[in-house]
């Protein structure tokens, strides 16, 4: 397992950030894709914005954005009156062979 996957398994969502220009590199990588400097891993804020969503067998999945630039596809628990641009929180993340991102809406 990679560092990223190990952290996810412990419900930590970390991302690579350039140690020189502070650019977030997502999906994670060893080097900054702007200046090719090395990266460090840092905790990502769990606050997210809903960009788009759909449903599969009654379960809601969505594209959400964290820190204004990290976009990922995850599940929304108990979705209620969803609106594009509304606030979500990354409730849980996990790794079991694939990455899992679970969001909840914020009242």
């Amino acid at each position: 397992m990679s560092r990223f996957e190990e952290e996810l398994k412990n419900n930590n969502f970390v991302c690579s950030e350039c140690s020189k220009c502070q650019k977030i590199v997502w999906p994670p990588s060893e080097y900054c894709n702007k200046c090719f400097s090395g990266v460090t891993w840092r905790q990502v804020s769990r606050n997210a914005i809903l960009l788009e969503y759909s449903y599969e067998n009654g379960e809601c999945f969505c594209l959400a954005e964290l820190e204004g630039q990290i976009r990922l596809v995850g599940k929304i628990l108990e979705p209620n009156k969803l609106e594009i641009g509304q606030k979500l929180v990354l409730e849980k993340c996990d790794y079991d062979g694939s990455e899992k991102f679970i969001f909840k809406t914020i009242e």
Partner: protein
Amino acid sequence: MICNLRKVGIVSSGLTKFAKTEVSVESLMISSIKPIFDNTKNLSQTDIDVVLTSTNANEKYLASIVSELAGISPKISHSVESLCNSGTNCIVSAFSYISSGLADVALVTGAEKSNSPGLVLNWDKSRGQYRHPIYWSSLFTSSHMRKHGTKMEDLAYVSAKNHRNALDNPYSYFDRSYSFEEVMRSKNLTDNVRLLDCSMPCDGAASILLASEDVIQKFTEDPVWITGIGQRTLSAGFARSKNLSSMYSTSLASQDAYRMSHSSPSTIDVAEVHDAFSICEIMALEDLKLVEPGKAAEFVKNLHDTNNKKINPRGGLLGTGHPLGATGIAQTIESYQQLQGTAGKRQVEKAKTALIHNMSAAATSSTVLILQS
């Protein structure tokens, strides 16, 4: 930027019937190469300078294997892989070898098995547990519906039209069509993507022979020329897409292709567009500027109601099946036949200029070719 290139034309082509088989990738390729040798005058193995293979299969040294099986000792041979637009990218590579003068004749062959490893992009961490393409297509659909008011009925017309067109394509996976009502009733995989809104992964192969303007007359009196090429990759990860209601890489690739061929959307007589899902045809028509944004659904319904074959006459990916590495080459073969006037019941009258749109992984990459007779 593009100057002093030699013209590159299409000489001949071959296909296998799209199906589910026990046949290997190299055998599929050889089966689609055979018709090229059967039907091309004055062609011998020694004429072929380049052999390129297009596939997502985990086959090693495939272009060399196919060369040996076809009795060819090429100057240049290798594979090209870029998920679903491998086929047109392979053609672009062959075009470049010929136009630059490195080669005169190139054989491009593409094939895929229905269980291709190219169906899911495991690298893309941003997709989370939603790795299968139906999820990005469902989010595209939500976004297009939100922006343009697109309805499930609009998507059903895409699928019904393309399945009906495929009935006249002897190489199609399906041996029956599906009506608008059948698409509407087909099983929902997500709330806005039904089973019949999805293209079918299958086995299939397609091959095409290209030659320079300097030697092409040896093989054919009736070549079709590749006059426009645009290829753009914006990212690999789905979540980098800025706007889910349009496919920006398609828009950029088409601008380059129109410019190179001195053509415009209004001069396109017939088009193959990458309808991996129903929503993709609607978005592609808008991004290729063949219709105004938000007008594709109405345009497609009109094509359906009037049995107009201008868009996806061979049945598209929805009607024909989608063997990834073969698809872009099969699209190009259809366009070649349309411009030669040999498309039979699928023929669009007086077609002089054709466009091919082939894309990968939620349109993170697109290729557009323009052919002229």
